């Protein structure tokens, strides 16, 4: 995709980072696009979680649908493979009664050399209302948000190493359902922080929600250079990092993103950074074990832990639908206001 983007003058990818809010919020502070957690305030995050809570209760109904986005068309624009994220976005849209179009660009026009903007303009011409975008390049969702017609919302479903805001929100939702108040919690994020957009979004969300202590636990080779600026405590030793924590978030070892040898071997990684039943005992007795999936069993997490009583990994998937419904209905509502 990089080549096709450069081919367009003025279509340079923005550096993700400062001032995303001018883009993702309306003048009166409502969510118009969901691009990154960074810069959002505690009230807005809480409002998203509260809205998700009302959707979570919908599962008791015989008809698990509400007519909120009836007549809206939502396009899943996925430039990178995904099963869980795409299907939960799709199901969220369908439960809001929207129509969903799945476009997998790997198999479509990208290979024919059509540029991102051309693809965008063509789908826009079909009168759609929302793009859900996943791309291997950081900043793609921002780029699309800057170029879409007014009235269309863009949701970032993961861009490069930058952000995966709805994943972080569903993780916050899962933590809040089990633990309530964030201010007293110790949360450890363990694993490949360097390549993880999920970790970056989680760290922002945890800090905005005023979490008592946020730890990142990783070997030096899997930590970004500026990690100390993220407002976290850094541990290079897993046993020390897990001591008394209330929540452990394991990250997937991103084999496909490892261009260089960051690790001697997966076996050694498991010995040093794998979450085993023995290590779990170092954490608080009611500790939650979370993982954004898909988990590499025997690489970052022992099967018995992934399937054990502390694990809320499958709940995360369920809650992903409610949280995505909340974000979708809020951004669509903001355009109307």
């Amino acid at each position, binding site marked *: 995709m990089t080549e096709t983007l450069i081919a367009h003058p003025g279509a340079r990818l923005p550096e993700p980072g400062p001032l995303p809010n001018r883009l993702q919020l309306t003048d009166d502070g409502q969510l118009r696009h969901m691009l990154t957690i960074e810069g959002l305030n505690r009230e807005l995050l809480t409002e998203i979680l509260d809205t998700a809570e*009302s959707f979570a209760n919908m599962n008791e*109904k*015989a008809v698990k649908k509400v007519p*909120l986005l009836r007549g809206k068309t939502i396009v899943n624009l996925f430039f990178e493979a995904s099963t869980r994220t795409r299907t939960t976005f799709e199901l969220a849209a369908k439960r809001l009664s929207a129509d969903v179009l799945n476009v997998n660009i790997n198999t479509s026009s990208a290979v024919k050399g059509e540029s991102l903007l051309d693809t965008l303009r063509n789908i826009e011409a079909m009168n759609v209302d929302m793009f859900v975008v996943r791309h291997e390049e950081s900043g793609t969702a921002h780029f699309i948000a800057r170029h879409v017609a007014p009235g269309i919302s863009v949701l970032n479903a993961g861009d490069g190493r930058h952000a995966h805001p709805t994943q972080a929100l569903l993780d916050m939702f899962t933590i809040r359902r089990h633990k309530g108040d964030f201010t007293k919690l110790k949360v450890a994020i363990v694993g490949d922080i360097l390549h993880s957009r999920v970790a970056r979004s989680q760290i922002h969300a945890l800090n905005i929600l005023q979490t008592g202590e946020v730890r990142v636990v990783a070997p030096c080779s899997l930590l970004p250079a500026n990690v100390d600026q993220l407002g976290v405590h850094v541990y290079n030793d897993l046993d020390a990092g897990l001591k008394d924590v209330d929540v452990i978030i394991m990250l997937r070892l991103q084999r496909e993103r490892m261009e260089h040898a960051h690790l001697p071997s997966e076996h050694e990684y498991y010995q040093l950074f794998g979450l085993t039943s023995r290590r779990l005992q170092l954490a608080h007795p009611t500790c939650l074990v979370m993982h954004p999936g898909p988990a590499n069993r025997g690489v970052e997490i022992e099967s018995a832990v992934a399937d054990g009583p502390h694990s809320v990994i499958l709940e995360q998937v369920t809650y992903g639908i409610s949280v995505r419904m909340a974000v979708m209905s809020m951004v669509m509502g903001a355009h109307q206001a």
Partner: protein
Amino acid sequence: MTPDVPTLLDDMAEQARHYLKTHGIEQPIVVGIHSGGVWIAEHLRERLGVERPLGKLDISFYRDDFSRIGMHPQVRPSELPEDLDGEHVLLVDDVLFTGRTIRAALNELFDYGRPASVTLAALVERDGRELPIEAAIVGAHMELGPAEQIKLRGPEPLRLERVAIDPEDLEA
């Protein structure tokens, strides 16, 4: 002067008893619409001696004005005690005005099952209906000016108040 709410409730309970008796309904499910309707529904349920738990509906996800005013900030979860298939529902709201809230509530109710019947009870019925909806049990009928509305304040004590209309509430 606005009518006294406890007196209206006594009168509504009397009408409801008669209605349920003539229709052969022994244990209805009493369902209130957030927020005012829930307060009224709870009092009616007590006065009628209904043992089944109170149902609560938040119709925000079913409103027909979402495309105009967007998401309601505080949506409370709807709670319905059980499967509604074959049940007699006594649907309760505080003020029946345009009828749009009731339309939304009916849509939501039917997502929980197929009730045998739905009967509408309203504390106040005022002019301004925009849909073919009427209440079988009514506390008070009121004619209000076009720029006026009636609000139920509560939960304790419950009282009715005439206020100048808020344009945002016009559709409610």
